[in-house]
């Protein structure tokens, strides 16, 4: 396992693999049917949110169990602007980012100023998400608990300006988000911020003794993570066209977000992507299998999630990627 200091793309094989993967992903919509495309979109969505969460937890060691908050608020912000005032999501997204970043910073400020860390911090993030969920349950302007809906256009529409279009459009959008997040996080990890965050994660007291204003850098991690996650909310709103507080803010959504990076490898760049792919494909496979057996049992997928999570935390505490990277002989590791 090498460290982030080793130049990320120095390894020829890694760069080759990455390019091949990118080419395959670009060609994918032409190669597969709509079902597989929908699974691919889901994978990209979770890879993206996982990457965003990873900035806070994986890089900086601050455990958030309330990331559904930023997805939800981001989604509702753009959706409300679009439905009520016909404001394009490309404009609304800025407001979503601003609001979510501010919320993240407020939570971070309160927690870090008052010296709340670890489990207590995680509980604080849950509390804020739950608080907001119940608030939206009674927020009539966006449909309260009855849900908030975007008009679904006829098939074949392609209106990039208003993000109305086919799954293929959403696929490329998700892919672009994922790729951008990957490059951004890779850059972060190699920069001073990445080093400072990891130092804070490993030992906050020692980090402080090296002149790092830990409060400021933790705030930066929370701000970036919440801003990135709000974009996932924008995607969610326009892809699914319906929003229910009970679903979008639910704590199990937050857990879904964090499963990918945990299974793939916390603090690594490929972990969130790998974890999202493994988890989504396996979970979908299970659902299909159960359906094929003619059974209709709710909860099967989640039990499966639980078992996978249990096995990974027990036997692969660093996730799949670090082990896999070593096996592949890739001189690439990030953070772990």
């Amino acid at each position, binding site marked *: 396992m090498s460290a982030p200091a080793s130049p990320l793309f120095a390894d020829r094989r890694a760069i080759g693999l990455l390019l091949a993967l990118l080419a395959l992903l670009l060609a994918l919509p032409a190669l597969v049917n709509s079902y597989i495309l929908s699974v691919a979109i889901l994978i990209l969505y979770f890879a993206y949110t996982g990457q965003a969460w990873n900035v806070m937890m994986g890089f900086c060691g601050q455990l958030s169990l309330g990331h559904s908050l930023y997805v939800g608020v981001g989604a509702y912000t753009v959706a409300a602007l679009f439905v009520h005032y016909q404001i394009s999501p490309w404009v609304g997204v800025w407001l979503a980012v601003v609001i979510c970043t501010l919320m993240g910073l407020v939570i971070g400020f309160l927690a870090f100023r008052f010296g709340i860390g670890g489990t207590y911090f995680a509980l604080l993030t849950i509390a804020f998400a739950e*608080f907001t969920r119940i608030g939206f349950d009674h927020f009539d302007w966006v449909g309260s608990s009855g849900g908030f809906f975007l008009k679904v256009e006829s098939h074949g529409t392609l209106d990039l300006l208003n993000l109305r279009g086919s799954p293929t459009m959403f696929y490329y959008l998700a892919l672009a988000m994922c790729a951008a997040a990957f490059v951004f996080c890779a850059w972060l990890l190699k920069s001073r911020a990445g080093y400072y965050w990891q130092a804070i994660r490993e030992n906050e007291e020692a980090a402080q003794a090296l002149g790092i204003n830990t409060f400021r850098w933790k705030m930066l991690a929370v701000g970036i993570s919440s801003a990135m996650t709000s974009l996932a909310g924008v995607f969610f709103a326009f892809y699914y066209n319906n929003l229910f507080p009970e679903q979008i803010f639910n704590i199990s959504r937050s857990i879904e977000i964090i499963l990918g990076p945990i299974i793939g490898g916390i603090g690594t760049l490929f972990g969130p992507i790998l974890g999202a792919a493994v988890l989504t494909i396996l979970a979908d496979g299970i659902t299909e299998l159960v359906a094929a057996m003619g059974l209709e049992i709710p909860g099967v997928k989640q039990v499966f999630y639980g078992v996978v999570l249990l096995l990974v935390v027990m036997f692969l505490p660093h996730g799949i990627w670090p082990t896999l990277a070593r096996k592949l002989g890739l001189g690439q590791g990030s953070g772990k």
Partner: protein
Amino acid sequence: MPIDLIFNVVIAGVLTGLVYGLMALGLSVIFGVVRVVNFAHGEMMTIAMYATVVLFAAWKLDPFLAIFPAALAFFVFGYFLQSTLINPFITRPEHSQFMLLVAVAIIMVNGLLMIFGPTARNVQVDYQLESWELGKILFDKARVYAALTAMATSAALFAFFKFSRPGKAIRACADNHLGAKVVGLNVKHLYALTFGIGSACVAVAGCLMVLLVDVTPVLGPAYTLLAFVIVIVGGLGSMGGALLGGVLIGVSEAVAGLFITPSAKSMVSFALLILVLLFRPQGLLGRKS
């Protein structure tokens, strides 16, 4: 708003709060000793509630009698959960332990969903509909019995930790686990014992709670959060704090349900949690670390 309505609601809140308190007591005891946050606490509570429903449906076993087999079964379950699954995680980082219990919680809540489906279940005993009247104030019999049982269980627990040998050993272990090891106490066994006791508390609380609410699988995460709110408000690791927190949350939920809307009642608890975390993170009765 008529004053006796408010009185009735507050009293119901206090009584329910004592059952909440017992549930949270389990969480607090486990945290105080093992230093692991049981993220599956509410899910265990829900399992106990379903167990009570099943025992009642099969043999008409009164929930108050179901307490005994449920507590015993949960004690054994908790003991083994700690000794097989959690003990190896004691030295792991906090987030790792958290994830382990999140996994356990996910399996539990969805396991219940697979077995029982999403529809609500309940038990129906005749004293659920009866009440005592004191002037204009009503005391639901089931709620009073449940609160008394919760208090008796808590008292037994206090006595256990105060006077019994294993109770004292567990407290020594909580104070200084290295010291406990040095004087020859089997720390892992004591941890498992503690988790078993905490689980038994939850089982009793679950048996009682069935009399007050209908049970669905999704109650699990909600109760986990509720238990967290209670112990943090009361003071994590403080036994008296858990009971006080339970009553406080019980009352505030009941009153919020009356004045705002029942579906928004837990908003008050979360607001309380946020305030306590910020201004008195050690909780109302907790000691400053």
